[in-house]
């Protein structure tokens, strides 16, 4: 009996280890190739590790492309949007949850409905609107339209719905202003929701490819994901530089994830979001 359990445990562990190695292999290969020269990558048979370690790929990316400009574009868009979305989501969620006014329910349902509209189906009208506003190929085209996030409002509202009444009653007795209640009571009480929303908005914006692809055109305005596809198409034959560029883009987010993985995982489970 005991033996059976041990065997099934062994099978479990072997499966997990094999799959883990398969899942990590592309990362390993990307890093390994980024430190090889392109001629070594094309050599057969291939070596798992670079025989002659070189930084040429990295140097090429950093000197022959506006990499820092791309990084700044991405940081600029992502940070502004994340901060604004956290603010709008929580304050609108607060109003929808704790105040009674006409059309409150209608508004909430419209917000829920907009959550179902797929981004892919919206790319044409969004492009036309952005062109009409004269924002085509400008960073503002990626920043302003995302200021209100239906999922964020929904998440915050659900969270604020669950806060106990007593929390607000004493503030009301003190005649605290609405904004004061928002900053002093609501915000601190929904920290977990804000945290997971922050992680997801940041990742979604940082990794987005479709919107920049449609809205941006010139190389200097690109965000990192779009820039990478542009760079790898331009340097088709230079595998070393392409892998170096991919590593530069992937490693920071992955490192942050490894450091804060518990918060990430809590966030995903809590918001149950994709």
């Amino acid at each position, binding site marked *: 009996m005991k033996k059976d359990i041990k065997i099934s445990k062994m099978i479990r562990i072997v499966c997990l280890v094999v799959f883990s190695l398969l*899942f990590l292999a592309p990362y390993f290969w990307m890093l390994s190739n980024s430190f090889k020269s392109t001629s070594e990558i094309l050599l057969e048979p291939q070596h798992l590790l670079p025989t002659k370690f070189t930084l040429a790929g990295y140097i090429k990316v950093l000197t022959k492309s506006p990499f820092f400009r791309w990084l700044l574009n991405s940081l600029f868009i992502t940070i502004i949007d994340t901060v604004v979305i956290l603010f709008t989501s929580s304050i609108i969620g607060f109003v929808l949850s704790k105040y009674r006014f006409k059309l409150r329910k209608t508004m909430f349902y419209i917000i829920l409905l907009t959550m179902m509209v797929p981004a892919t189906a919206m790319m044409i009208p969004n492009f036309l609107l952005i062109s009409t506003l004269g924002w085509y190929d400008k960073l503002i085209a990626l920043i302003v339209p995302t200021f209100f996030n239906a999922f964020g409002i929904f998440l915050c509202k659900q969270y604020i719905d669950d806060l106990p009444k007593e929390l607000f009653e004493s503030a009301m007795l003190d005649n605290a202003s609405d904004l004061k209640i928002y900053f002093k009571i609501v915000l601190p009480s929904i920290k977990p929701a804000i945290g997971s929303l922050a992680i997801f908005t940041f990742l979604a914006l940082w990794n987005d490819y479709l919107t920049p692809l449609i809205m941006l055109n010139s190389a200097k305005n690109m965000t990192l994901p*779009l820039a990478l596809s542009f760079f790898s198409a331009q340097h088709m034959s230079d595998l070393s530089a392409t892998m170096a560029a*991919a590593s530069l883009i992937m490693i920071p987010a992955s490192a942050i994830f490894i450091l804060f993985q518990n918060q990430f995982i809590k966030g995903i489970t809590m918001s149950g979001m994709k």
Partner: protein
Amino acid sequence: MKNKKFIYSVIIPTVVFMFIFIVIPIGIGLAISFFNYNPLRDNNAFVGFENFVKLLKDKEFLVAMKNTFVFVFGTVFLNICLSLALAYFISRFKSNKVRSLFRMIFFLPCIAPVVATSVVFSRSIFPTDTGLLNMGLNALGLGSVNWLGDPNVLMISVIVYTLWVDVGYNIILFSAGMDGIPNHIYEASDLDNTSEFRKFFKITLPLLGRTFQFVLVQTLISHFQMFAQFSVLILKDGSKNSGLVLSRYIYKTAFEHKDMGYASAVSLVLFIIIMILSFIEQKKTQVDWEY
């Protein structure tokens, strides 16, 4: 709480914004699907349902539709099987550290931009001569496969990539569901010498209930919209369009051929598919909130 000024100063900007950036675009999208619309032209004729009639006879659209369904159902089926199995294996470890180590490994690909990992796969995992995948196959004594060049294999390659990049989310969600199952149920079955197989199908799966439905529908919805890997992995699609899916077809028609009226009609089809899935989920979650 009833401060009118505060309510209005939050609600009015919200409504205005939603109107400009959400309601109007949806309206535009619907409207131009009835026009022969090209943004570079001054005169765009109203064509009624012509775009929709054209859909039924458009071979490329039908191929894209078929490919989308093959991709979505193939990937989602494999994704659910794989993530359930891995999440189950992980959840059976007692040590928290071991569990989070494995979850981290499988979630790592979800963190990186899809473009970045697609570039890595297209340039150094899938290539026939220098790719890691064929090196592995050759080491096992198997022959090389032309992963991205052979139209019959192309969709399999995209599915393999998508599993790698996306399975981590569901592992996390299933793990959370499984952690909610009380451990004493498993301990009782350990005493009865129940096989792992039975434990999984008789205990874990039935008790996952709502988590399973939620994960299934959310994965379907997200896979119908996947775009980046189709745009980066597929370098040359050739005449067979073997990797053409709806999202890619919309992009191609709208932005490469500038035929936006027709592309909007295709968008509407995708929109309807996703709406149906969303409503199914709403219904299910209302019925089955608890287990």
